[in-house]
């Protein structure tokens, strides 16, 4: 099979983590060979799939601090989760607040809903202006939908303050934790609904994601079909997690995800954060101040995602990313990162940025190689 070079230095972990705990792939392989259809029957192969998917819910609930595994519903991605939640709750007559930091997985479902939208602005470092929230609400404001951490700058939003404001004003807060869940602590008491992906910092396979609810919501039914129960009823159950799970679940993927999240739970999120922050700081310190290099983001904050996005004078972001890959075997992400409003705000919409994003499985040697490469390119 010709997949090209895969022995590279991989700094695109915010897109997907490429190196995962070995038990993740082992679980996927095991499930493909041994699992029946989850939730459909009593015999061992089917029941095993059901039990391991339940165990995946339990691991995810544990990581976020929930004591109810059935508050976790599985989808194919954070994008699907956000689509389902937004389309299932937001009405055309609602006013919704979001931020200019958002990924298109938040923006496009909101645009599609037809709701009235207001956006919280950010400063030149990409940090949201939380103080402006009060001025954005009106009598029709029902929801705040926002990211926990920017996939462009790596800045982490103070969601606890946002949620306190939402609770005081009867606004439902929907939090996109695609970048943060598994990277930094995410607390169950900082939003009403969480949308996550499995394949980034949770170390699960691609094609896994989900929704975590903190209480009952009256979601519109967005998908319907076979669920293994209620066969004579015309409509899908509205209970969690059934309302979002129809048809055969991705049990190989979810068994792999369970192993990825268990790895994090056993290791401890603080240990992951400590290492990825150390790698990010090593990289940042190695390139900050370099002539021709401009770094974006707030690096003096106490907590941030392990992301360093930058531009090098004389290069568009695709040119820089290609040079890094062709000459130095370094994989990064160029472009707009599906975050159009933030790139406009940072005045980087024309050339984009190159994003270096680190994982627990990167090494200091790899980071040193990245620093050397960037110094060589920047000095021409």
């Amino acid at each position, binding site marked *: 099979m010709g997949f090209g070079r895969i022995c590279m230095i991989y700094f695109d972990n915010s897109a997907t983590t490429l190196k995962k705990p070995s038990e993740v792939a082992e679980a996927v392989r095991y499930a493909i060979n041994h699992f029946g259809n989850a*939730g459909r029957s009593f015999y061992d192969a089917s029941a095993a799939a059901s039990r391991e998917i339940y165990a995946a819910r339990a691991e995810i609930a544990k990581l976020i601090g929930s004591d109810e595994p*059935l508050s976790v519903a599985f989808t194919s991605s954070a994008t699907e989760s956000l689509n389902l939640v937004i389309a299932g709750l937001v009405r055309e007559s609602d006013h919704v607040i979001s931020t200019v930091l958002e990924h298109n997985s938040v923006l496009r479902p909101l645009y599609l809903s037809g709701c009235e939208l207001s956006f919280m602005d950010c400063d030149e470092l990409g940090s949201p202006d939380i103080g402006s929230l009060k001025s954005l609400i009106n009598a029709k404001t029902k929801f705040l939908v926002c990211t926990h951490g920017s996939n462009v700058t790596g800045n982490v939003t103070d969601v606890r303050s946002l949620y306190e404001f939402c609770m005081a004003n009867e606004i439902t807060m929907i939090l996109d934790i695609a970048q943060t869940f598994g990277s930094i602590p995410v607390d169950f008491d900082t939003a009403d609904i969480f949308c996550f992906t499995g394949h980034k910092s949770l170390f699960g396979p691609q094609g896994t994601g989900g929704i975590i609810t903190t209480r009952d919501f009256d979601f519109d039914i967005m998908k319907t079909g076979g669920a293994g*129960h209620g066969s004579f009823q015309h409509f899908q159950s509205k209970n969690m997690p059934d309302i979002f799970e129809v048809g055969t679940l991705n049990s190989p993927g979810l068994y792999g995800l369970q192993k990825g999240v268990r790895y994090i739970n056993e290791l401890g999120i603080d240990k992951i954060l400590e290492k990825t922050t150390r790698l990010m700081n090593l990289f940042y310190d190695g390139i900050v101040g370099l002539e021709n290099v401009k770094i974006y983001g707030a690096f003096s904050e106490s907590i941030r995602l392990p992301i360093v996005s930058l531009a090098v004078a004389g290069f568009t972001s695709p040119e820089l990313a290609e040079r890094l890959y062709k000459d130095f075997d370094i994989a990064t992400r160029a472009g707009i990162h599906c975050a159009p409003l933030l790139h406009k705000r940072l005045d980087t919409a024309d050339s984009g940025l190159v994003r270096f994003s680190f994982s627990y499985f990167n090494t200091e040697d790899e980071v040193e190689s990245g620093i050397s490469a960037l110094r060589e390119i920047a000095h021409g």
Partner: protein
Amino acid sequence: MDNPSEYVIVFSSTNVAIKAEQCLLEHGMKVSVMPLPSQIKAGCGICLRTSPDNISAALEALANVQISEIGLYARKGSAYAKTDFTDG
């Protein structure tokens, strides 16, 4: 009158059934997953079977994890009778 040979606990969904099974196993109870008997018209496609010795503790354990929307059936011979369990 004959005592039940076993109890069958029926749930609103397969997800709740699996949660209940895990709960009872964690409490060290003997329980097994079985297909919903065709005589029982309510509930999801799988249910849990347990012995009369276990049923009181099983229901208490399930109530403690907020699994209350269940149906309880006592098996006598090939018949299943809906019942509200009382240990007296």
